């Protein structure tokens, strides 16, 4: 019940916030962007606001965080008080500071991973759709095979082989995600390549790279963006699931996924500490997808009216 009440309050609070934010945007931004801002639903405004805050926090982490990322500044599990607003963690590091730095690391890693996955996945996918034939078949079969392997166990294998530096972590998760992206990109691109303008470009004698870059990609973007939103958030989950299996981010780097894992046991005793990083992830997920939904809705030629 308390949880529900809390949710209601949060939602109630976020609505005027979002409204204010949108209003300010409309005021401050140059006219042509302001128009866009003005039409965006409150949910999207809320999403943008949250993302903005996260980016802000991530960038200014060292300035904002009251304590250093790794420093042990108290005894373990201190309650919330005036010095440690959110108490301390299992090693006596300041929870708030960890969260703030976590934003930087987690969002950074997640972004890098997802971007990599999308560059590789969508390029290959579009290329396959464009060329068709054996290339398409070969690539798709191979990707099918990779997708048939449970992703978590696959990443586990790869990470055990290549070790768990942040770099390998990014590469491995990106590789696994890329297969999913490939699929979507391919199916979307297949819808685009039948268009007359592609035919025209082919007849003009354009090369593959131009076709992919200028003709197909821009028109396949919308659904890819939507996927980006979800995948982006799934990276956190993958990371924390991996650290559940003993891999994941290198300590003492603060990262939400591992923070959830490290403190998860506490929930057994009704201690809310692990809810903080988890909440942070959830909030970002919701925010990102609100924005994505809005973008989709605009891209879909305002199909969905409201």
């Amino acid at each position, binding site marked *: 019940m308390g949880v529900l009440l809390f949710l209601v309050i949060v939602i109630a609070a976020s609505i005027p916030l979002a409204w204010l934010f949108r209003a300010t945007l409309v005021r401050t931004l140059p006219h042509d962007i302001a128009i866009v801002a003005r039409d965006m639903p409150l949910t999207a405004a809320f999403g943008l606001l949250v993302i903005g805050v996260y980016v802000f926090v991530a960038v200014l982490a060292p300035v904002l965080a009251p304590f250093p990322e790794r420093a042990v500044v108290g005894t373990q599990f201190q309650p919330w008080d005036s010095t440690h607003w959110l108490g301390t963690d299992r*090693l006596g590091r300041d929870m708030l500071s960890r969260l703030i730095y976590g934003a930087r690391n987690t969002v950074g890693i997640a972004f890098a991973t997802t971007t990599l996955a999308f560059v590789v996945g969508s390029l290959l996918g579009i290329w396959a759709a464009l060329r068709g034939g054996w290339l398409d078949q070969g690539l798709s079969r191979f990707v099918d095979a990779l997708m048939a392997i449970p992703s978590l166990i696959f990443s586990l294998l790869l990470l*055990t082989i290549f070790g768990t530096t942040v770099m390998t972590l990014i590469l491995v998760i990106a590789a696994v995600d890329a297969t999913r992206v490939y699929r979507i990109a391919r199916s979307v691109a297949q819808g685009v390549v039948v268009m007359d303008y592609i035919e025209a470009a082919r007849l003009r004698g354009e090369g593959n790279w131009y076709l992919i870059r200028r003709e197909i990609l821009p028109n396949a973007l919308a659904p890819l963006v939507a996927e980006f939103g979800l995948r982006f958030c799934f990276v956190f989950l993958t990371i924390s699931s991996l650290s559940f299996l003993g891999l994941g981010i290198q*300590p003492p780097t603060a990262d939400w996924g591992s923070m959830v894992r490290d403190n998860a*046991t506490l929930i*057994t005793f009704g201690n809310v500490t692990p809810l903080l990083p988890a909440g942070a992830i959830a909030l970002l997920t919701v925010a990102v997808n609100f924005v994505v939904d809005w973008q989709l809705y605009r891209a879909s030629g305002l199909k969905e009216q409201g």
Partner: protein
Amino acid sequence: MNDKTHHTGMTRRGLLKGATALGAAGLILPASYRAARAEPQKGGTFRIGLGHGNSTDGYDPGLWDNLYAQVFAASRHNQLIEVDAHGQLTPEIAESWESSDGKTWVFRIREGVSFHSGKDVTVEDVIASLNHHRGDEATSAIKQFFDPVTDIRADGQNVIVTLDAANGDFPYLMSDYHLAIMPGSDGKIDPNSTDGCGPYVVESYEPGVQASLTRNPDYWKSDRAHFDRVEILAILDSAARLNALMTGQVDLIDQIDPATIGMLEARGVANILSIPGNAHYVFPMDSRAAPFDDNNVRLALKYAIDRQQMVDTILGGHGAVSNDNPIGPANRYFYADMEPKEFDPDRARFYLREAGMDSLSVDLHVADAAFSGAVDAGALFAETAAQAGININLVREPNDGYWDNVWMQKPFVASYWGGRAVEDHMFTTGYATGASWNDSFWSNERFDELLVKARSEINEDLRREMYQEMQRIVSFEGSVIIPMNNNYVMATALNVATPERVSSNWNIDGFRAVERWWFT
């Protein structure tokens, strides 16, 4: 679960000399237990939730490699010799044992003991059971115990083992948990059978899930095995174990996340057993490799660690600060008043300068496989070291394969020891030049010399001096950082009672809680 293998390996020689007792070892029981103390009562189903056990576990005694296998084995098998709660060798299937020269050992086999299958335990069974671990084709983890064994033969009710050289320790080897007595036929045992002569009879077993056993009706020890049934569950997730205990689905769990011990106690739904012993956590440094080849650097690191903080945070207080001393308070010649190493950044800096460097940067390779909390411990270490201008760069390795690819491979790692009851064993296994588990590849002439001398020294005081000098050498010139001695921490349901003393020689009362404990 390789860490447990490691554990086994480390401690399998950690047994007792003759009548030597583990001085202060064993548990000072909490009030609740004393209150519960009374004559053991029969009955009940004892459910154990262990943080070990794999779906890949096999039956072969030679390959028992984790706590689950060990407890499961102890509940269905007996051995030649048992190590009691006081750490003394006591007869089990071997009624008695003797050797005139230390080369020929005679074990007298107890009569009137029978396997669960009903078959009597014979000398042949014992020989078959021993031979399973012996010979070139043997694939047992304790194969090398038997390398010096030239012959094993029967003589009436006796088993006679002949060695190529004298070894007064041989009986302690024979009490190793791998050496379960199993029924043999024409000189071989069936490694895949669960038939034994132990306290409980296996009813069902799903590897990595659960085993359930019922009391062996004609168990020869009348004063043991008080439970009607025993269920051993593999619960790998620590939160799951906690929940299982708190929701009354199990009566005993091991490996409690130190962070949560306090909260669990506060709940008042369980008793915490915290058993001090010689087990300790270590950070070995490869003394052959720079920069660790310079003792100043090693000292700098030793002063750059906050031991008390480690005990409080990593062990949740369930342990004791160690002064880089592999010899524990439970040992006879423990050097208690060797001057302690407080956390002292300035001193650390001083030694750095001595080593001719103003800053130091090293990689520390850790995984929770080394010991639970190793990663956190590394983080703490890195923190305190930073204050001394030493940059410890933490490298978290996968648990999986840690002992193959990191331990004794990388120059600076985390590891742990089950501890040794006897100084000589500890030093010979881990610190003598060229010893198989000298994981810091450390070598010190004086130390080696003393080690040999002390073995043959009769004068108690001289002997004490020698051992204390060795402890001081290891502590101040050695290449292993030993911040703390860790207790074995278990939690039980409130209605579980234990004997006066709980063994500190192994976890779970030397694996034998099933036959030693009872419900009130």
